């Protein structure tokens, strides 16, 4: 009698394949295979009981609350992701924020208390802007990194967004360098060539181009750095929202 193979055991355990009645019959008749199958069952049952932290019934609502600020809805146009005119406006806003921040830093300071307060407000505005910029950059990178392997990818929308992000990126990098925030400046420095590559590339990438870009993003750990620095900036942004007395002085981004 030929014994069952391990593959047959596995398929039988999961109820896959069309040989179940034959496997069942063999198990009924063969003690060796029955013991072997019991051993497999024990292992997989143990694996099955590995714990997963539970999320309560409100978890979906919590996810939505975190997600909502990143989504843009337009009922007239249907589903849209930051339509172009908004991006033009975003670049303008970025310019104004940076200009206001720098003007505030270099303008003569005659009233220290008021200046300190204004400085905190400027810092908060800038943190919000940089955090938002990193989040949007991350979305563009994820589009490439999560692309289906071996398939071409339509990046027309990402290309347009990357073009807008490049302009913002330069402004924020220069500001970060001026304020001595080398960590933020460094990640923006790493980010810029990738954004440029997407912005100056074709609307449709071949599978090979997608793979090259993915390797570049992953090989340099750019996505990870953007995520980590973005999270740090958000954390500082939250701290900057606290009342003035609770804030330790921060001059960097």
């Amino acid at each position, binding site marked *: 009698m030929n014994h069952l193979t391990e593959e047959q055991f596995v398929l039988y355990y999961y109820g896959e394949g069309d040989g179940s009645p034959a496997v069942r019959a063999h198990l009924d008749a063969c003690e060796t295979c029955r013991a072997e199958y019991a051993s497999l069952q024990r292992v997989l049952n*143990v694996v099955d009981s590995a714990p997963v932290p539970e999320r309560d019934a409100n978890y979906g609502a919590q996810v939505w609350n975190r997600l909502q600020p990143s989504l843009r809805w337009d009922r007239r146009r*249907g589903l849209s992701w930051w339509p172009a005119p908004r991006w033009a406006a975003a670049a303008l806003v970025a310019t104004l924020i940076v200009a206001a921040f720098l003007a505030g830093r270099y303008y003569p300071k005659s009233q220290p208390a008021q200046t300190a307060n204004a400085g905190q407000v400027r810092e908060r505005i800038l943190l919000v802007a940089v955090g938002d910029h990193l989040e949007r950059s991350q979305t563009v990178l994820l589009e490439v990194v999560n692309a289906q392997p071996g398939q071409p990818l339509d990046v027309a929308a990402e290309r347009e967004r990357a073009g807008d992000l490049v302009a913002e990126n330069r402004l924020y990098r220069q500001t970060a360098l001026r304020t001595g925030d080398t960590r933020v400046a460094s990640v923006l420095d790493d980010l810029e060539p990738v954004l440029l590559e997407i912005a100056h590339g074709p609307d449709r990438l071949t599978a090979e181009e997608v793979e090259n870009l993915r390797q570049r993003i992953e090989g340099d750990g750019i996505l990870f750095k953007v995520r980590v620095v973005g999270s740090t900036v958000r954390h500082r942004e939250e701290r900057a929202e606290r009342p003035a007395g609770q804030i330790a002085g921060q001059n960097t981004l």
Partner: protein
Amino acid sequence: MELSDSVAVAQARAGDSGAFRVLVERHSRNLFRLAYRMTGHQQDAEDVVQETFLRAYRQLSKFDDRASFGTWLYRIAANCSLDLIRARKRRNMQTEAGAEEGAPDPMQSLPDPSPTPDRLAMSGEVERKVAAVLADLSEMERTAFVLRHYEGMCIDDIGRTLGVQPNAAKHSIFRAVQKLRRALEPLMSSAS
């Protein structure tokens, strides 16, 4: 009346944020479980859930109505999880290169050790071993195994999710099971 996934998708495509919210609230917990099984970390799993919905939102216009929305989300979540795992491996390699030895592998430390009846059946050693073996599986093996074993997805769907032939998905599951058996059977026979 509860919206079906397909109706909610159609409404979300038309710009109804409330319909997308329904989808987020409906699928978040399942995605978290999948992401946690894949990454072994609560925070990473949270990030994966977030990224999955962001990407789903961006790609909603490309979603094929004939497919299952849940399966489509799973595919995105599995890819997001793999990205995180790859990034973490690189990060660990960089850390190990510069740090002192003995830094614990995050996959080895399962959170929430509070006992439940199910978990009491499994010793801490076996638990750690399961986590370690899962962490050592190749990306394809781990994804295919998690989708089959924990999520109950059939092999054909796993193949579609991973963009490979069903046979390749099947063999990834076989290899994963083999590795688990090799690692766990000695522990279990010594315990019994």
